[in-house]
């Protein structure tokens, strides 16, 4: 169930101005990465969190981003790569070189 915010002053998407009372959903989806990275200023971060409390849909979007990130982590290759023979040979030559 979507809970609408208290006031909607019709700000268009784009930067959050100092006068903005709250974050809209359209703004939120552009702020989500900064939010995860911890690079939002305190005021904007608070506004994002307030929005997330009130907006289940953006909370869903946030969770989907988290799922995407975790899934990406699962794509990394677990097999340890082996150095090519040429490189190992060069290394052995080092080992056998006179001191």
């Amino acid at each position: 169930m979507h809970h609408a915010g208290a006031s909607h002053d019709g700000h268009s998407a784009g930067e959050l101005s100092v006068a903005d009372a709250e974050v809209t959903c359209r703004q939120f989806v552009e702020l989500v990465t900064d939010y995860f990275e911890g690079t939002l200023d305190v005021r904007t971060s608070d506004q994002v969190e307030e929005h997330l409390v009130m907006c289940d849909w953006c909370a869903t979007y946030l969770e989907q981003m988290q799922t995407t990130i975790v899934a990406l982590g699962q794509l990394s290759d677990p097999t340890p790569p082996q150095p090519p023979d040429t490189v190992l040979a060069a290394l052995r030559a080092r080992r056998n070189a006179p001191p």
Partner: protein
Amino acid sequence: MSAEHPGSAGAFTGSDERLLASLRAGDENTFRELFARHYPTMKRIARGYVSSDAVAEEVVQETWLAVVSGIERFQRRSALTTWIFSILINQARTHCARERRAMPFSSLAPSDADDPSVDPDRFQQDDEAWPGHWATPPRPWQKPERRLLSLESRERLKHALGQLPERQRLIVGLRDVEGLSAEEVCDRLALSQENQRVLLHRGRSRLRAVLEEYFDAAA
């Protein structure tokens, strides 16, 4: 141009000293560990510059050969890792120039900055009841377990990652697949934090949208 940068973000440390000694002695175990630790990252970065996986592997191989042959001359002006990655980038650039491709990372392309993360039509317009709020909101994904994806959806994600614009693919690959920190990525690629974040944001947003399509179709 020297590959070492005095005062660079990665400074030569005590553990670097031990690593340097092992490498100079030709210690294979230490080398294999170092190689394995950095290979996925190096390959991803090289792949951002050249036209194929095979060429990227060549670039990485040549880099390690240069590391082994240059290790005696290394002067501790930066961390070993910083030095290794700057060799990599130089090698990648040489190959890139040979292939006559455009150099990545010289600037953030306009298209990288301008794409919205979500189709603007999914939000209410300024003349509607709640401007900026969802018109077509995201629906929760039906997953077997919280945050665990099926093999099929993971394949879809993998494919989509490969389809991302090169720079987004590289940043998402390094940050989210290989798990490097923002600082590490910016250091390896000489990229600003902000540009790195923009690319990460665009890439992740596209991939979320791909998964959303998948889950909406499956529902």
